[in-house]
């Protein structure tokens, strides 16, 4: 058993008297793409916010690489280890390159100036995310799918070992969804630990290495897509009938009404 890149131990988070996370424990293996699934209001977003230090759980702790707790790190040191893409993002009137450069913010000194190394990293990030062609355009002029890739490029430029994303495919059309998931897979293949809240079950099951299925603030199942599927947990938690099929030698999943 390898040391998890990020692990949560007995997290409890309540908001307004109601428990959002109840004694939640989970471990995220390094270099894997984990999809966090669950019905609306099950605490997926809250878990992600706790994992990146935006929210402080009332009890329990989160460990990086099995060692240092999250709370022991300064905000800046944390931002060099964990990056986070929130679901709702601003659309600032700056160029794509300027936005992607903000990914280097936690690595900059007090002068806030980019070094040549930073510029090279920004360039590579834009190349990998496929936004180099419109690097000099302003963000508001782009389509939703393009903006999403720009924000992913910013995460790439932040260059952290752990990457958290809250519903990165929402509002995207089919092809852009696939592109985003492929980019997440590429990040995973380069050694990063990628954890994404996803709404699209077939997409999540098809692309991710691990599934963490939540129900009422607790893990209902965890494991590979096959394990979670075979246990029937998805059908039970979502109240649907999910089917695994083979098309053109590929395993795909479809959602059906129970």
């Amino acid at each position: 058993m390898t040391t998890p890149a990020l692990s949560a131990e007995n997290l409890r988070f309540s908001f307004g008297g109601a428990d959002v996370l109840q004694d939640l424990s989970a471990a995220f293996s390094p270099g894997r793409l984990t999809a966090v699934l669950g019905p609306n209001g099950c605490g997926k977003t809250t878990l992600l916010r706790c994992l990146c230090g935006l929210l402080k759980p009332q009890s329990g702790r989160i460990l990086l690489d099995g060692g240092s707790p999250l709370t022991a790190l300064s905000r800046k040191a944390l931002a060099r280890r964990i990056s986070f893409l929130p679901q709702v993002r601003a659309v600032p009137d700056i160029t794509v390159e300027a936005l992607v450069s903000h990914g280097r913010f936690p690595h900059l000194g007090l002068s806030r100036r980019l070094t040549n190394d930073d510029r090279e990293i920004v360039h590579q990030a834009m190349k990998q995310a496929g936004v180099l062609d419109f690097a000099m355009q302003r963000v508001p002029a782009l389509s939703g799918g393009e903006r999403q890739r720009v924000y992913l490029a910013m995460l790439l430029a932040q260059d952290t070992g752990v990457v958290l994303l809250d519903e990165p495919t929402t509002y995207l059309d089919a092809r852009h969804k696939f592109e985003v998931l492929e980019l997440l897979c590429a990040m995973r293949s380069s050694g990063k630990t990628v954890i994404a809240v996803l709404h699209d079950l077939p997409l999540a099951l098809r692309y991710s290495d691990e599934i963490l299925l939540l129900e009422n603030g607790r893990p209902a199942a965890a494991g590979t897509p096959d394990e979670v599927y075979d246990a029937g947990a998805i059908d039970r938690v979502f109240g649907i009938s999910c089917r695994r099929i083979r098309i053109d030698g590929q395993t795909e999943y479809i959602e059906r009404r129970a």
Partner: protein
Amino acid sequence: MHTSRTACSEKPNKRAARLFPLLLLGLVLAFCLSLLVGSAQISVLDSVRAWLRGDLSDPGCRILFYVRLPRALAAVLSGAALAVSGVVIQNVLNNALAAPNIIGVNAGAGFAVLLVIALFPSVSGLIPASAFLGALFASLLIYAIAARTGASRVTITLAGVAISSVFTACSNAVKTFFPDTIYNANAFFVGGFAGVSYRNLSPAWAVILLGLLLALLLSGDMDVLALGDETAQSLGLAVRPVRLILLVTASLLAGGAVSFSGLLGFVGLIVPHILRRFTGARHRVLVPLAALGGAIFVLLCDTLSRTLFAPYEIPVGIVLSLLGGPFFLFLLLTRKGGRIE
């Protein structure tokens, strides 16, 4: 889609780089113009010669060096301060409709100034400090409302209008109770540079310079803050402390300006909005350009207000409000919610 892309495909940085020397030149020209033009016909050349001779009794020399020059300096300082204060406040509240006069920061500073004049009429050195504290109090108040309620942009703006009128009422009360000490209260409320002297400017310029320096130093942080709280925090920005320092910065600037110019309105709204159209929202570029643009704008408006009905002059605050009011309405009606985009 394609046409809109080519329209903004020009590098905004390059455009800003070209705008900077242009505005610098504009500032020099506007400054010279405001020294040359006035209700008294004086020969600037003769006046400078008299000054060089050490002949300070020459009337032209006195007008140039003791009336027009401090006045031009006052316009430059307050214009730069109010415009940059607007940029900072719009960033902190993430609200394009915010500006120091609209959300009550100017009114808070004004009330504090009047109170100090009423209570300690002999201590003029207290004025910039009290203006700063009044501005800070008002901006913290509006920020607390914004943070506590998560109120929408328009709600914040309306709350600012309410705070502004409470401060104005307090100021009026002070004016009523101390009618003798505050003999030029009317001019103060309208805002203008008619009575400005080097003595008014002497502590305020340092306050404003400090504010401008802070705004420049924090421009990178403002860019990150503009990405939204969650993104900014996950990039490692200490959002709360930075917001607080930014509010102090905006208050230094607005307070410094109000302490000698009175309640000048709308500079902090008009100038950043016009400049953003050209340069986008990068604060490293926007802050210095807004300082230059604000200075030029107020200088020109002041020159206009002195010459339009010469030998009479109307306070520059009237000119600014006549321009700013409609501009604010235009923003309110055309960009619903006033998002900075």
